[in-house]
C-alpha cells in the first residue's frame, strides 16, 4: 500500500535568469517497508525529489500525498510538525547537534515530540544498541568517527518511529567499511521495524542492496526497477 504518492510533480529553479527544470512531471509512489534508491547523475533531480517528499521544498506543480495528507498544502509550521512525527532524515554530512552527546542527539527528536524522559532514555538506548554504538552514548559527535556519527544520525532518524526515512547520500562521506556497516544496519532496521527507507545515492553498494531503484535523468524518471 502506497504511503507516499507524487502526482505530476514539477519544480523549476530560476538560476541566473535561466530556468532549470529540476523535476519534470514526476509520478511516483512508495509503499510501506520499501528500501529504495534514487539514483542518477548530478543535477538529475534526486535531492530536489527528496526535498519535496520531505516537505523541505514545494513543487511548482503537482501534489505530494503522504498518508492522505497533501503536504505541499500545509503551512510552514504544519510541515515542520508533520516532519517531526512522520519523517526521519539522514544527511550526507551527518548534521548532528555538536553540543549534544550521541544519546542526547537521539533523545532530542523525542523531546520535541514531548515524549516522557524515561521513555526517551529507553528508546535512545535501544537505538544506539541497534546501530552498534551503545558505548558511545555519552560522547559528543566531534569525538566520533564519520561512520559512528552517521550511525547516530540513523538512530536519530528512527527515534520517533517515522513512517519513512529520507537519506540524502548517506554513505558519501564514509569509507567502504563504514558504508557497508551502515547499510547493513539500515537494512536490518528496515526489516525489523518495517520502516520505509528512500535514499538518494551515487554509491553502487547502496544501489545493490536496494530492493527498488528509481533512476532520474534531467528531472524525469528514466527507469523504475524492483528486484
Amino acid at each position, binding site marked *: 500500500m502506497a504511503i507516499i504518492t507524487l502526482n505530476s510533480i514539477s519544480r523549476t529553479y530560476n538560476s541566473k535568469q535561466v530556468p532549470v527544470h529540476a523535476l519534470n512531471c514526476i509520478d511516483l509512489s512508495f509503499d510501506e517497508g520499501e528500501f529504495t534508491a534514487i539514483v542518477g547523475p548530478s543535477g538529475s533531480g534526486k535531492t530536489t525529489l527528496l526535498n519535496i517528499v520531505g516537505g*523541505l*521544498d514545494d513543487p511548482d506543480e503537482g501534489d505530494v500525498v503522504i498518508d492522505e495528507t497533501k503536504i505541499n498544502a500545509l503551512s510552514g509550521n504544519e510541515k515542520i510538525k508533520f516532519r*517531526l512525527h512522520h519523517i526521519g532524515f539522514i544527511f550526507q*554530512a551527518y*548534521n548532528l547537534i555538536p*553540543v549534544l552527546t550521541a544519546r542526547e542527539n537521539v533523545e532530542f527528536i523525542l523531546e520535541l515530540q514531548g515524549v516522557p524522559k524515561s521513555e526517551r532514555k529507553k528508546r535512545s538506548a535501544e537505538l544506539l544498541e541497534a546501530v552498534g554504538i551503545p558505548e558511545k552514548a555519552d560522547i559528543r559527535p566531534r569525538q566520533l568517527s564519520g561512520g559512528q556519527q552517521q550511525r547516530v544520525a540513523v538512530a536519530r532518524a528512527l527515534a520517533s518511529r517515522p513512517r519513512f526515512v529520507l537519506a540524502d547520500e548517506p554513505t558519501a562521506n564514509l569509507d567502504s567499511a563504514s558504508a557497508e556497516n551502515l547499510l547493513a544496519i539500515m537494512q536490518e532496521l528496515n526489516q525489523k521495524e518495517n520502516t520505509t527507507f528512500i535514499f538518494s545515492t551515487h554509491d553502487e553498494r547502496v544501489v545493490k542492496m536496494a530492493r527498488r531503484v528509481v533512476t532520474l535523468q534531467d528531472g524525469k524518471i528514466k527507469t523504475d526497477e524492483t528486484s
Partner: protein
Amino acid sequence: MLIKIAWRNIWRSPVRSWIIIAALLVGMFAGVFSSTFINGWMVQRLRDGVETETGHIQIFPDGYQNSREVSLYMKPGQLTGVLEHSAASATSPRLIVRGMAASAETARGIVAYGVDPDAEKQVLNLHEKIVEGTWFDSPYSRPIIIGQKLAEQLELKLKSRVVLRFQDVEGTLTGGSFRVAGIFRTSNTAFDEGHVWVKKETLSELLGISSQNCHSLVIRLNDAEQAMNVAGELQAELPGTEVVPWKELSPELGYLTELGNTYLYIFVIIILLALGFGIINTMLMVVLERVREIGMLMSVGMTRWRIFLMIVLETVMLSSTGGLLGIFLGMIAVWRLSITGIDLSVWSTGLTEMGFNPIVYLEWDAALVLSIALLVVATGVLASLYPAWKALKLKPSEAVRAI
C-alpha cells in the same frame, strides 16, 4: 534540552564568548560602580544637608518664609502638640535674624540663629563638626559658633571678638559683641561662611523678643522618609504656621537623588546600547556559522518559534553571564569602598564649594542594581531579536546544505 543546547552553544567558541562576557563584565562593573558612587555622593550630600543644615521639618509663622520679618514669630502656645506627634523625636526652637558679622578687619552678611545649645544638638549634628573650640561650652557670656570659612574671611580665631549687627523687632539697628567659642567645618563652604549660632536668650534680648517665642521650630523625626507625610499632618494641626519638610526647605537636596538616578540610567543605557551592538554582531556571526545546523533543526522538526527561542536564550545567557558577573564584582568593590571611601581631597576646594564631601562612601541601592540587572537581560533579549529573525528567514532545504 533547549536551555542545555543554548548554554553549551555559548562555549562552542570560548574565546569569542569570553570577549563579549568581558565587555559586559567591564561595562556592568562600571555601571554598578558609578551608580553606587554617584548614589553615595548624593546620599551623603543629602544626609549632610538634612542632618547638619535644615533638619527634617521646620515650622515657621505664616508669611515668614517670604518676608523674613523679625516681627513674625510664634508663641509657645502655637506649637503645643508637635512633640506629642509620634514621628517627632526632638525639637529645637530658634530665633533667626539676618545681619552683618564684623571683625576688626572686615564684615560679612550672615544669618544668625539663636538656639538652646542642648536642644539644637538633638535636631542637628553641627556640634559634631566643630574643628576648634566647643559647642557653646565656654566661659564667655556671649559665645558664638561660626564656620571655618567665615573665620578665615573675617580673620577670626577662637576667643576672637566679633560684632553682630541687625535690626530688632522695632526695626531699630542693634547688635552685640560675641566671642568665638567654636569653629565648625561642614562639607558645604557656602553654608560655613553664611551662618552663625548664638544662644537664644542673648539674641532674644538683642531683638527684643521674649525667649519663649521663636521664628522657627526645627523638628527631628524618627524616620526622615516620613517628612512629607508628617509635615502634612502637622500643617493640618497648626493653623497660622507654615510646616516645611526638608525637600522644600532645600529643594536642590530633594532633586539631587532624582538627578543622580536619571544621570545613572542614561549612563547605564549608553553602556548597554554600545554593548548591545557588540552582542548583535556576535550573534549574527553565530547564526551565519550555524546555518546548516539551523537548517537541520528545521528539517527534523524543530519549529521556527523554538529556534527563535534558542537564539534568544543563548544571547540572554551570554549577556547575563557577563552582566551578572560584572554586577557581582561591582558589589564586592562597592562593599569595600562603602567602608573605606574614595578620597577626592585633591579636588576638595571645588567639591566643598558645591556642598559635596570630598570623601565619597559608595552607597548601595538595591533597587538601582536590580534595575541594572534587568536592563542587562532586556539588552540581551533586544540584541537577540535581529539575529534570531535572520535565523528564521533561512530555508531548511538550502540551509541544510550550506558550507
